[in-house]
């Protein structure tokens, strides 16, 4: 089975099956509300694919993906708010929340976001560029392991706090109440379904990109850096650059996920991008299986689904179940859900041992 999926035909089959489920079965079986939820979860899964690359393959435990997710989300939200304002008040009109905050003039940095093209470019470029800068600053100095994890966590905390202080970005309340998405009414169920398809499409593309990266020479190099960074330097590579690429790609994925998330959920606020949400992203990946390609996707969906299902069932005690779930899966199943198959098969070959040791 695994062998087969490695082949070209296997890859296509895998994608076809995923597409069938996402584009065919899910919309058929789920209510509008559940489909919307699934769309939201798919966004988390997109972030997870990036983390799987940076952490699972590259060994960088990025506890701050909320930052990039948030950047993409806010950039998109800024466009939606300016578009709404323009629709109601003409060019240069001030979004509703600013009026409430006593801001009478559209801040200069908001103006370009009335352009959809600019917005999309910004979503693709800004977070990635920020990740590159930060990555260079950190990886060139060989900050890694738990250091890097703690630092990225502090980044998420600082970023959330910074946003809370920005009244022109909605402060603590964040940005919400979007009416149109590139001209389509968001309240319309048809358009909501469209958004789901967009999210599913983004997920499949992101998985395809990640797959190509993993199978490329770069993918091998990344694993080499993860396992013996110093050694890679002595082969003439700048290990920092290798890491930066994976980190930036993860940031890009997170940003795109955030951008898609905003019209689906209808709000982005600092509460969705701080320390705890960032850990939740990681947990999904860990639970699914950080090192495999689909593990992070499965994990992200499973964690989000479990969170929703448990909290619906046991509104006041679900955190116990959730906490225990994290603890048990991670403690007892280091390879995550993705490893269940191989654990079950128990083939005691050298190969698995080496992988487990890695």
């Amino acid at each position, binding site marked *: 089975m695994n062998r087969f999926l490695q082949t070209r035909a296997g890859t296509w089959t895998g994608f076809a099956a995923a597409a069938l489920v996402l584009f065919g079965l899910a919309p058929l079986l789920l209510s509008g509300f559940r489909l919307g939820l699934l769309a939201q979860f798919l966004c988390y899964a997109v972030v997870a694919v990036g983390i799987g690359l940076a952490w699972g393959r590259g060994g960088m435990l990025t506890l701050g993906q909320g930052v990039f997710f948030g950047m993409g989300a806010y950039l998109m939200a800024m466009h939606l708010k300016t578009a709404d304002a323009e629709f109601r008040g003409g060019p240069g009109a001030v979004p509703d929340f600013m009026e409430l905050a006593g801001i009478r003039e559209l801040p200069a940095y908001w103006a370009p976001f009335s352009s959809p093209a600019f917005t999309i470019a910004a979503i693709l470029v800004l977070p990635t560029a920020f990740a590159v800068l930060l990555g260079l600053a950190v990886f060139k100095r060989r900050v890694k392991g738990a250091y890097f994890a703690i630092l990225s966590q502090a980044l998420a905390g600082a970023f959330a706090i910074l946003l809370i*202080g920005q009244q022109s970005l909605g402060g603590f309340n964040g940005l919400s109440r979007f009416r149109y998405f590139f001209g389509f009414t968001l309240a319309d169920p048809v358009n909501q379904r469209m958004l789901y398809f967009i999210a599913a499409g983004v997920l499949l593309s992101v998985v395809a990109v990640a797959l190509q990266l993993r199978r490329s020479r770069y993918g091998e190099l990344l694993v080499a850096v993860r396992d013996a960074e110093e050694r890679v330097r002595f082969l003439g590579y700048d290990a920092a650059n290798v890491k930066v690429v994976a980190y930036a790609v993860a940031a890009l994925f997170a940003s795109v996920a955030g951008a898609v998330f905003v019209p689906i959920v209808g709000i982005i606020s600092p509460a969705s991008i701080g320390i705890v949400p960032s850990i939740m992203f990681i*947990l999904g990946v860990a639970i699914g299986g950080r090192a495999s390609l689909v593990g992070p996707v499965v994990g992200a969906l499973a964690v989000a689904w479990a969170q929703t299902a448990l909290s619906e069932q046991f509104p006041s005690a679900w955190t116990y179940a959730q906490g225990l779930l994290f603890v048990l899966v991670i403690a007892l199943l280091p390879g995550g859900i993705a490893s269940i198959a191989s654990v079950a098969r128990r083939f005691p070959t050298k190969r698995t041992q080496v992988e487990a040791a890695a």
Partner: protein
Amino acid sequence: MDLLVGQLLTGLSTGSILLLAALGLSLTFGQMGVVNMAHGEFIMAGCYTAYVVQQVVGDAGVSLLIALPIGFLVGGAMGLVLEALLLRRLYHRPLDTLLVTFGVGLVLQQAARDVFGAPAVNVSVPEALRGGVDLLGTTVPRTRLFIMALAVLAVTAVALVLRFTPAGRRIRAVTGNRDLAETAGISSRRVDAATFFIGSGLAGVAGVALTLIGSTSPTTGQSYLVDAFLVVVAGGLGRIKGAVVAAVALGALQAVFETYSTASLAKVGVFVVIVVFLQLRPQGLFTLRTRSLA
């Protein structure tokens, strides 16, 4: 001038709080490499210990004195259980300890909510620690002086033990190389458990002390965690000396930023300073170098 002195004092007092919260971490994270996200909840357990003891004892002064050692035991006991049940399996997977203990933290928080109720509870400050002392033009609350003294005491004790006693050597040996320590006749299990006990116990002590200035609620403790980790990282893993300097520096930075901008921006400022600082000293203030390539 006065302002500067005031800042410094504030920095010291903020720093000593950070230090108290971080001291246990510098053992469990710095020495053992366990990224214990439940450390904040151990601090919280210390807070509630102070509360329970006060309910039983009544007198705030006496109860504080009793609560400090009991808080140590409570925090320590929770640490022991965590170590024995989970962490023992995870020493070779340090980054996973982060995720597991995060889950544990969630559970502990909810448990506190169910046992003590969601709203904050009050731990009274002893009469003797009420009010402030005028020092160099600013008023420093006595509670903060007490915490500074406690921090100095705890840090000195931990540093001395680690540096000069056989137990300290054993801790450093086991955390450096478990197998090798076993072959040196040291029971790494017991040392691991003991180290984690002390580190978690210190969290409990911090919790008791923090009831003097902050609130006692299920989410108390959480708020100290990230800063405490930063202190350990900026100080250099496993370096008590580093943690002291980093805690005071972070406290002072925070105080300075707070005066000249908003408190929110202060957090961001501190983060930026740390990233810049790590450019100069990527392994923290004080580091133990080795020649290994790991």
